């Protein structure tokens, strides 16, 4: 129904603080774009600029090819799900959902049929006569979704909609949001700080840091080829292990002096990284060929059932290794952490990826 195009969007507050420092994102029709980043990275500000709740200091926001910088939130035909739901406390669920339609002069019987069919989809039919305070957290969340859906807007915006729910409900609602968004085919922008939500929901994943975009791409591409050490440490749980490289010949010596074979083209690298699941442990004395083998001491073992996380000290850093099932190692064990060469990531002085 609509594309959303951000071109070099900036937000500078009157005090001179630059919250968003030039962001360009193109979201194709019907796709769900997730903005993810730590708090204060500018993702919510960016979302509010798309909504029209914040003025745009520089750059353009275009919806369906039309620049909307000068158009207020009332006329943008966008619906937003707020973190605290922002349901109208003095209105019943029915009126909460009908409010937007009434404001746009929709005929009464059409409002009624749309509200009732939306309520049916969201399993809210029995709750239409209740007020928000009589609903549970999950139900309020559904009403907030319903209020957005019923209007059939061009774009959906989600501002951390699941962060007030408990873990189990969050998992359920995540799947529901994804299914709804796909079946309705409405272009959406979703802000979260939860990397799991970001990975599972996104068609396009935008990782933000300090007002800038660190990386844009499909979730698995971002996961497999993080563009920077920031992305590497933000996406993935537990995050990627990062080891500093030093020495006269850059990119080849670890902090504790151990020499590793450096591949050509990676001479600029000062950081080496590998994912916890791309490493394994061995008690064998010899290092396997074509792999990095770090002598390590196990500090802690975290069994979580299907897998275990080994926290080890190696090369002057702490690293995490994921092994499936129960771990054969116990705290205090000396062993080797092995990571295959093709699973290693290299980053330069500025933290950018080196291939």
């Amino acid at each position, binding site marked *: 129904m609509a594309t959303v195009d951000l071109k070099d969007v900036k937000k500078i507050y009157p005090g001179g603080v630059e919250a968003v420092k030039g962001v360009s994102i193109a979201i194709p029709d019907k796709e769900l774009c997730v903005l993810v980043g730590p708090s204060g990275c500018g993702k919510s500000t960016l979302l509010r600029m798309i909504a029209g709740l914040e003025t745009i200091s520089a750059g353009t926001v275009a919806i369906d090819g039309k620049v909307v910088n000068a158009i207020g*939130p*009332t006329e943008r035909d966008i619906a937003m799900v707020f973190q605290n739901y*922002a349901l109208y406390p003095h209105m019943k669920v029915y009126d909460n959902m009908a409010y*937007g339609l009434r404001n746009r002069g929709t005929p009464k019987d059409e409002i009624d049929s749309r509200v009732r069919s939306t309520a049916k989809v969201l399993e809210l039919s029995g709750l239409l006569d209740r007020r928000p305070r009589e609903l549970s957290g999950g139900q309020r969340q559904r009403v907030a979704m319903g209020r957005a859906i019923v209007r059939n807007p061009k774009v959906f915006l989600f501002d951390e909609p699941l962060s007030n729910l408990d873990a189990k409900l969050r998992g359920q609602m995540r799947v529901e949001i994804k299914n709804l968004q796909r079946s309705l085919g409405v272009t959406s922008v979703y802000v979260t700080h939860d990397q799991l939500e970001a990975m599972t929901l996104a068609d396009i994943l935008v990782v933000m840091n300090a007002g800038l975009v660190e990386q844009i791409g499909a979730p698995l591409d971002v996961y497999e080829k993080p563009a920077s050490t920031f992305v590497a440490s933000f996406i993935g749980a537990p995050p990627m292990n990062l080891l500093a490289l030093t020495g006269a010949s850059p990119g080849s010596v670890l902090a504790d002096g151990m020499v590793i074979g450096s591949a050509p083209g990676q001479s600029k690298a000062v950081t080496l990284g590998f994912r916890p699941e791309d490493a394994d442990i061995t008690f064998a004395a010899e290092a396997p060929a074509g792999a990095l083998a770090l002598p390590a001491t196990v500090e802690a073992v975290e069994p979580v059932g299907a897998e275990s996380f080994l926290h080890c000290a190696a090369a002057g850093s702490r690293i995490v290794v994921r092994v499936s099932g129960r771990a054969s190692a116990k705290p205090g064990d000396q062993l080797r952490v092995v990571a295959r060469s093709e699973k290693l990531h290299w980053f330069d002085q500025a933290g950018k990826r080196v291939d």
Partner: protein
Amino acid sequence: MAPQLAITLVFFYWPAGQALYQSMLRQDPFGLKSRFVWFANFRKVLADPAYLNSIKVTVVFSLATAIVAMVVALLLAVMAEKAVRGKGLYRTLLIWPYAVAPAIAGMLWLFLFNPSIGSLAYLLRSLGIAWDPLLNGTHAMVLLVSAAAWKQISYNFLFFVAGLQAVPKTLIEAAAMDGAGETKRFWTIVFPLLAPTTFFLLVVNTVYALFDTFGIVHAVTGGGPGKTTETLVYKVYNDGFVNLILGDSAAQSVILMAIVIALTAIQFRYVERKVHYG
């Protein structure tokens, strides 16, 4: 006996009892002897056209004062909330009138609208209005309501500002995205959420206009011209201390006591049980 109980007895129950007792006495014109007449004073007062007129005056005055004070205060609060710069200054300046004593406030308005020397009276006359609160009862009432409302605006303003700040910003934003313009947002979201504040202020303002405006009436009109601005409280004073009809005056104050009790009951019943959202 606890001291607070002693104070209540001496300063509340004893005078109240005296009022009740005296409302059933009738004195001769020289105050030499009095006679117990049961409820004759009440019957006389309630049948007196001047008293019925005073009830009408009080209703008009109280409603007008409460409504004017609340509407103006709400308007000022909404405008002060919208101010980008100097919010604190606006608020401070708008709260000041509350610190002015009622009699002073009355004198202030009296001078401003005095037909012969008042600067605002001069302005009104130059606009073609034959302004004369000394002879025209309606004009006197307008002046009285203005003075009484002016003093109460600050108080209402303070409560409305607090009420407006308690309305979550995200609700306004959600309404904006739902296509509601500024006026519509105010009437459909902000105003309903202010309902507890508004109801509380309605009771407080009515009580203020009924019982706390003696000083203003006394300074501005003295109940005149004729009896066009003689409120119930002012009539108690007039009949008791000016005309020295103590029995009638006491009966009137007992009626006022009943009104206060009724209002307090309403306040406890509806205001204390606050309307809660969320």
